[in-house]
Structure formats: C-alpha cells, structure tokens
C-alpha cells in the first residue's frame, strides 16, 4: 500500500513538472536571439520532406532550435496553416482562392524553398538489373494512369522500350490517397499534355483517379511501388533515388527523352518569368533539355504574425533555408533556387510582420 502511494505521488509530481513546461526550454542557441522561440512546428508537403528533414536536423545542430516538420501532405499543410494549428505550412500546390479565403489569420505568403522533379517510378522484376530506365511519353503516362494502357507489353510502351516486349503482366497503378502537391504538379503536367486527361480528370491536389492503389504521402507511394511487383507510381526524385527505385525518362516538349536530375530540373525554371508572389508552375518547360515534370515547393507563412517569440524564429529559419539551406539540395537531387527566385523570396520574407514591424531579425535584414 505504501509503495503504491509513493509511486502515485511520484507520478503526480512528474505530471506536474511535465505540464508546467512553458513555451520554451533552455537549449542555448549560437545564432538565435534570446527572446526567439526555440521550438517551431511545421507540417505539409511530403515532396520536399527528404530535404526538409536534412535541413532541420542541420539547423538544430547549428542553432539549437527544434523545427519539428511532419510530412502529412500538401493538403494537410494548407489546412493546418489555415487553422493555425502549426507555425508554418508546406505545399507544392499553389493555394486556391477558396483555400486562401479560409485562412484564419489573414494573408499567407508562398516562400519558395527548392525545386524538385516528379518522376514515374516502377517495379518490374525482370528489369531489376537493367541499367536502362524506361522511356515514357505524354501519351503512355496518361494512358497508364487513365487505365487505358493495361499491360506492360502494350505496343505503345514497347515502341519506346523493347525490353518490355515479354512482360505481359498487368500494370498496377499507385497514386496518392491524400491531398498532395506532388499530385498537383503531376496532374498539371498531364493536363497540359493530354487532352483526354484534361477532359476526364483534370488537375489539383486531389483528383478522381480512374484506377489504382492509394499510398499516403510520397513515402506511401514509394512504399507501394517498392513492395508491389509490376507497379508504377509518381514520386519526387529523392524518394526514387534513396530507395533504389528506377526513375523513368520522360519525353519533354521538345521531343527529347530526359532523365530527371538536378540539372534538368533547374533548367525547367530557366527563362520562366517569376511573379512577385512566386506562385508559378514549372511543368512542361520549353527548354530543350529540361525535365518536363518539375515544380517549386513553398513554405506557407502568415504575413501578420501573432506570436512575438515565434515571428523572428520563423523568419530567421526561412532566411537560412533560402540561403544556407540550398547547399544541401544537390546531394539529395533537389535543384537549388535560382538567383532571381532567391531575390523574390527575400522580398516576400521581408513582408512578414509582427505587431506592425518587420519580423525578420535585425541582424539578418541588412
């Protein structure tokens, strides 16, 4: 009886201690200010999650600030920032007017952070050791995802890929089951290149997929493809690379079959007029060597911040991301922001205010 009482009292004390933890705890930072929040929460896109998880791990080592990013999909990121249940959101789909109108805290800026490529990835046991990746055209991709092309040895596919001649298995399609910016980029591309797709399905974070299995997040789709023989899905390049899944080549606007990598992704942004609010899609680029399924990804932040401790922390993190963060892009096959994009992003970050004053800490906004 006595032992029990001691345990319960100890538990109560522990509970009290834990709950009494206020806003910040003391991990002293090297470069962040004394009154800035030490913990931030963000949620959203899985597209850049590979990069962000690297970023925030490094940022934590550098400044002691814990930026907890949870990849729940762009749809989740948009909803979370609209409801103000997180400090920043992330999405690779541009927020629609309806979504912007639903934002509880007012105006939201889209801060671009990086450029990534969406690749068709597949799992064909016969081709597991092949050095060549399959070649896809607008017709074959839209055909597969519409359910019109049902087997791997369909003549349309074999025309570009003789190695598929003897693979008579059915194609298992994998798509996103959650609201996804990656889907947005992928379907925007399909809408641009396939009349039939534009008619039947359209583009957006969530669409009515004619066929296929759903996976949650880029992680989920990559997981499905990895485990299901004869499947095909669309994922951000980093997911294909990290999991040794093949990334198919895609025929771009100029008729060339391009492999997705840092270079071909960066080229997609070249020559594109960047609007001040940075809300622009990069699919189906006219550049002859560009990969055609490419897009920006953004961090979503309120211009009118409400928390005096978090506002400078968020802006400091954003500033670091578009400058120092870009060094981590290359190793993970994301394309760093081109110089003009960085300039526009800086201007957008400077628009963020707290209590009427610019939120960006003074030591950064020279």
């Amino acid at each position, binding site marked *: 009886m006595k032992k029990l009482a001691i345990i319960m009292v100890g538990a*109560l004390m522990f509970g009290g201690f834990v709950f009494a933890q206020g806003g910040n705890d003391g991990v002293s930072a090297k470069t962040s200010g004394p009154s800035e929040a030490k*913990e931030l929460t963000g949620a959203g896109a899985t597209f850049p999650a590979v990069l962000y*998880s690297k970023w925030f791990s490094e940022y934590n080592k550098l400044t002691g600030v814990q930026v907890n990013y949870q990849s729940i999909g762009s749809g989740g990121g948009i909803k979370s920032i609209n409801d103000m249940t997180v400090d920043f959101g992330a999405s690779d789909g541009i927020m629609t007017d309806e979504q912007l109108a639903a934002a509880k805290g007012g105006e939201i800026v889209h801060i671009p952070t990086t450029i990534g490529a969406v690749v068709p990835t597949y799992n064909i046991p016969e081709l597991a050791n092949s050095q060549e990746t399959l070649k896809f055209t607008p017709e074959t991709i839209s055909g597969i995802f519409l359910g019109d092309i049902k087997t791997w040895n369909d003549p349309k596919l074999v025309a570009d890929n003789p190695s598929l001649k003897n693979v008579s298995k059915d194609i298992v399609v994998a798509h996103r089951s959650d609201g996804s910016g990656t889907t947005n980029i992928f379907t925007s591309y399909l809408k641009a290149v396939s009349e039939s797709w534009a008619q039947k399905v359209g583009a957006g974070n969530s669409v009515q997929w004619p066929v296929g299995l759903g996976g949650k997040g880029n*992680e989920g789709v990559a997981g499905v493809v990895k485990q299901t023989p004869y499947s095909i899905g669309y994922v951000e390049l980093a997911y294909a690379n*990290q999991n040794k899944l093949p990334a198919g080549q895609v025929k771009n606007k100029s008729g060339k079959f391009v492999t997705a990598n840092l270079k071909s992704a960066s080229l997609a942004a070249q020559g594109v007029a960047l609007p001040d609010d940075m809300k622009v899609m990069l699919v189906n680029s006219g550049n002859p060597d560009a990969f055609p399924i490419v897009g920006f990804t953004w961090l979503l932040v309120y211009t009118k911040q409400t928390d005096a401790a978090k506002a400078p922390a968020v802006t400091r993190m954003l500033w670091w991301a578009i400058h120092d963060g870009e060094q981590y892009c290359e190793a993970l096959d994301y394309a760093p922001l081109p110089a003009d994009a960085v300039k526009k992003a800086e201007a957008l970050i400077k628009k963020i205010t707290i209590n009427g004053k610019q939120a960006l800490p003074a030591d950064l906004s020279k």
Partner: protein
Amino acid sequence: MRDLELARIRSRKISAAFFYGLIILATVLSISILFIIIYHIFVSGVGALDFDFFTKIPKPYGEAGGGIAPAILGTLIMLLLAALIAIPIGVATAIFIVEYGETKLATSVRFAVELLAELPSIVVGIFIWALVVRNLTGYSGFAGSLALAVIMIPIIARSVEEILKLVPDTLREAALALGTPRWKVVLFIVIPTVLPGMFTSIMLAVARAAGETAPLLLTSLGNAFFNFNLRRPMAAMPLQIYSYAISPYDDWHKKAWGATLLLIAIIGILSGAVKYFTRRWNHESR
C-alpha cells in the same frame, strides 16, 4: 432391420467425428494465428533493438541509424498524463454507479459509459481535434493525452464497476452499523479490498491506450525531436510505427518492427506485472 439401425448409428457416429474434426481444425487455426503474428513480430523486430534505438532521435530521411527515443518518451508521457486524468474520473464514476446504483442518474451514467466505451477511436480523435487542437493548443501532446484519457475512462469505469459489485454488501453494512459515515465506508473499507483489482483495471486501460494510433494522428501529430512540452506536438510509438511502416525505407521498416515488438512487450509486461502483484497482494493480506 438391425442392419439398418446399425448403419444409421454408424453414419451418425461418422457425422459426429467429422464435425469434431472441424471443431478441432477451427481451434487449431485460431490458436496458431496468435503464434504466427508474435513470431513475425519477434523475428523481424528483435534485430532493430540496439542501444541507439532506445536513446537517439531519428535521422533525416534515407540516413541509416538513429533511433525512436522521442517516440518512446512521448508514449510514456502521454500515457501518464492520460492515466492521471482518467483514473479519478473512471473510478469515481464506477463508485457512483455501484454505491448510488438505483437512482435514475446512475442508470444514465452507466449507459453513457457503455456508449463511450464503444466510440471508434478515430472519432475520439476528431472530437479532441475540434475541441482542443483547433481552438486551444494546435497539435500538442496535451491533446493527445486528452484523447487517450477519453478512451481510458470508460474502460476503467466498467471494470472497476464489476469489481466493486463483487464486494459483499455485508461488509458495507457492518461498517455502517458501527457508525462509519458513507464516504468513509467507500474510501477506507470497500476500496482497499478491491485495490489489486482496480490496479488491474487501470493497467489494462493503460495497455489498451498504449497501442492507440488513430486519435494521435489527429492530435499529437508527431515530433522528430525530444519534447517534454505538452503544448507542442509529441511523438508516440504507434505513430512512429505507422509512418515508418508505410514508408519505402528498409531501415525504417526494421525500426517499425522493433517498435512493434517493444510495444507488445510493454503491454505484455504491464499485464504480467499486474497479475504478479495481484497474486502477491492476495497472499500477503490473507
């Protein structure tokens, strides 16, 4: 005629044996399922349980190593807080139902407890999200604990109610006859008798809450870092298992199995410890 009778008896006996065989088959199948599942969990998960697993935070996507320490910690913290909230309410409710049992209020409370017990846990998550996450704290460990508490309250209430009912009325009446006020009878006479049983109920509720994932998806979200702050998102073992299992990374799959093994082990230890202490208690006090 006799042959006919014998033939009939034989066919009836064959029928009986046949169905007996089916029954044996059904039983064997049902038993093997458990062993198969535990086997797989053990074999796939034991390899992941190294020192780092228990002490380090997760590494960035694609990098091997690291651990799930934040998730283990988060589960423990949220379970503790949920228990602190649920135990008083659950026990009080059970006492009310049993000791004030024949009033209309008590029947409604009993009914409410039954309904609460049957709530799908994802719906509990929606409720706490709408009430707490949306308006109060954003995604947070506190919201997660509340969701777990809502799940634990009816479990505790129901089983403590059963236990209290087992206490013979003669005990209560004897105490009352000696002039003990009602509240003292309950607190100092009835409850100490059933303390081990109550302990069992609480541990079972905790074991059940330890495995809940769906409500946490919508309330505590998850955290890649160590976090003691209940007002911020918190990692939890079931959440980690889920996100790692559906990912493509082999290293994460291994960790997911390991976390599953750990979770099952914790649940097993809780239930086992309860049985052990109950037996000791019973032996000591008799």
